[in-house]
């Protein structure tokens, strides 16, 4: 197998791992990795706009809307009227959302500790993602 094929194979396996991880964590803990990423940003952005949140998470606003709907349904976040412009909505994390976020992070610790074997390569991986997310 060529290096290129091996890399693609790894990418595929990695994709599968994330998919399975997401399914399991949403079923067992109530939050997927994508939802965690949104809540994690939101905790430091009280009363933010969907646009700003999407920028922080690093996704397109349209991609974010489904995640926001799911999180709102679970009462993890609350959509509020923008006091400066009633046509717009702002987003804030709720106490329930904060508790869920903490619970997710506690539950996920054993798995995230396993990822620490990649510590040396984390900067390389981050640069790789930064470059390819822009393309």
């Amino acid at each position, binding site marked *: 197998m060529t290096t290129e094929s091996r890399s693609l194979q790894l990418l595929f396996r990695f994709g599968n791992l994330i998919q399975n991880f997401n399914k399991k964590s949403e079923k067992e803990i109530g939050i997927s990795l994508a939802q965690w990423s949104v809540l994690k940003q939101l905790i430091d952005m009280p009363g933010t706009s969907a646009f700003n949140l999407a920028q922080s998470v690093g996704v397109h606003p349209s991609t974010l809307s489904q995640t926001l709907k799911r999180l709102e349904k679970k009462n993890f976040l609350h959509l509020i009227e923008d*006091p400066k412009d009633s046509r717009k909505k702002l987003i804030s994390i709720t*106490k329930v959302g*904060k508790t869920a976020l903490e619970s997710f*992070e506690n539950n996920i610790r054993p798995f995230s500790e396993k990822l620490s074997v990649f510590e040396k390569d984390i900067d390389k991986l981050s640069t790789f993602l930064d470059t390819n997310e822009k393309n």
Partner: protein
Amino acid sequence: MIPLFNKDGLVVLESLSFTNTLYAFDFDGTLAKIVREPSSAKMSSETHSLMVQLSKLVPVAIISGRSVLDLKKRVAFKPKFLIGNHGLEIQGNENSHLVSASNMCAQWLNILRKTKFSYGIEIEDKKFSLSIHYRKSRKKANARMEIKKVLETLDPKPQILLGKCVFNIVPTGAPHKGTALLRLLKDANIKHAFYIGDDDTDEDIFSLPYQSGQIFTVRVGEKKKSHASYFIKNQREINKIIKLLIKYHQSNVGSKGMKGTK
């Protein structure tokens, strides 16, 4: 501008307690009720006791038109930051602009003291700014005209900050409450602020460039033209807010990821 005590307002207020937030308060008309004699303004014992509790949980700032020296006499607890003279004076921070402000105020005071004002108009020397009060005047509209006319003759021309029955004068281009708050946030490396005030001088904070969620602004009393995001009905509701802030932060104690307590 929407009421603070509805679901939307309370959700954002609570979410401020999940992150590192500076809680800043105006003094007169906010922490203390407006009184006929400005020198007798003070916090109620309940407000004072609640502020003591709050300042143990979170970084607290008091941003007022009064001088820092005057504020210290009225605030028995130690807030993290005391800002006086409408943002010009930051406790423990002697700046060159304070020297020129003090000289300018001495010059203006000299002229104002020689002026024969009608009954009820009083001048307050706050070293770095001056306040000309007319709360005791029986004909307030006339008093306003009279003061305005005298202020127009001052040289160099002061910057006028209108308050409730008061003209505040500061050197033109002096830092205001908004710039002072932004400076506190920068120096303390805090991203978010809560600010509550009741006066036109507080608009300098209410109208800071809006970066969603950065500054959560509340006005004491609803006013259509205000730039504040939320309002409470009157000063009597201040204790309700402080109690909520204490409750939110206490419920975070021991909780992982809490950053608000310092």
